[in-house]
């Protein structure tokens, strides 16, 4: 099942709609790498609210996506990790090191806005 990617200003929002297979996640990775270039996006939000489990493969892939997009000039923030999912990730020893996370879509947008402002300030 394909993940729809919406453009919101200079950001992209990938809103996962259903449980994903490994192949779907890899497809999302490729789609985002492509879309970030086409839309010249500075930031990407991946909404994982509906995911019932984030296992080692999903963690590895989300990390890979964030690092890839960084190389393409965009910040990534993962939003919507549910409390039980976070608990299971901690039990499994899984971390999203180096990847931005926010509570929900709204917080994710604020996070990216702040990152964008900081970049402009640093450049001055």
């Amino acid at each position, binding site marked *: 099942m394909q993940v729809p990617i919406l453009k919101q200003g200079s950001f992209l929002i990938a809103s996962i709609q259903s*449980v994903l297979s490994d192949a779907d996640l890899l497809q999302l990775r490729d789609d985002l790498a492509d879309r970030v270039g086409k839309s010249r996006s500075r930031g990407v939000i991946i909404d994982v609210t509906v995911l019932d489990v984030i296992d*080692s493969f999903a963690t590895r892939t989300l990390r890979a996506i964030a690092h890839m997009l960084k190389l393409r000039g965009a910040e990534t923030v993962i939003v919507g990790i549910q409390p039980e999912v976070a608990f299971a990730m901690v039990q499994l020893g899984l971390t999203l090191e180096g990847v931005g996370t926010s509570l929900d879509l709204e917080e994710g947008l604020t996070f990216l806005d702040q990152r964008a402002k900081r970049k402009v300030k640093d450049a001055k």
Partner: protein
Amino acid sequence: MPNEAQIPISSDFDIVAARQQGRQLALKLGFQGGDVTLIAAAISEMARNIVDHAKKGEMTFERIQNGTKNGIQIIARDDGPGIPDVNQAMQYGYSTRRGLGVGLPGAKWLMDEFDIVSKVGKGTTVTMKKWLT
């Protein structure tokens, strides 16, 4: 849904299906949200091990009882290459592939009981249990 289910595992789609089957049975047996997610995560890691290392195998989920205790038992079985050094495979961060090496040790942490039997050239069977508290 009866108190047991069996599902063949041979692709990444089966990993999703196994997780859903296990989740349904766990809910039916009375496990609560947090525990159901832990069980689903353990199933996911074991199903992935089958696909990655053995190509195909099967998983069974069933209700178990011990005195007044109720629980769920999950068995992941394959006829794959087997694991030469089980102790090493159980070490956190050890992976023969490009994985994170958390599958086996992680699943052990998530469940109450965990047992692995592996014979090189014959295959691997992982039995995991979680009890209702």
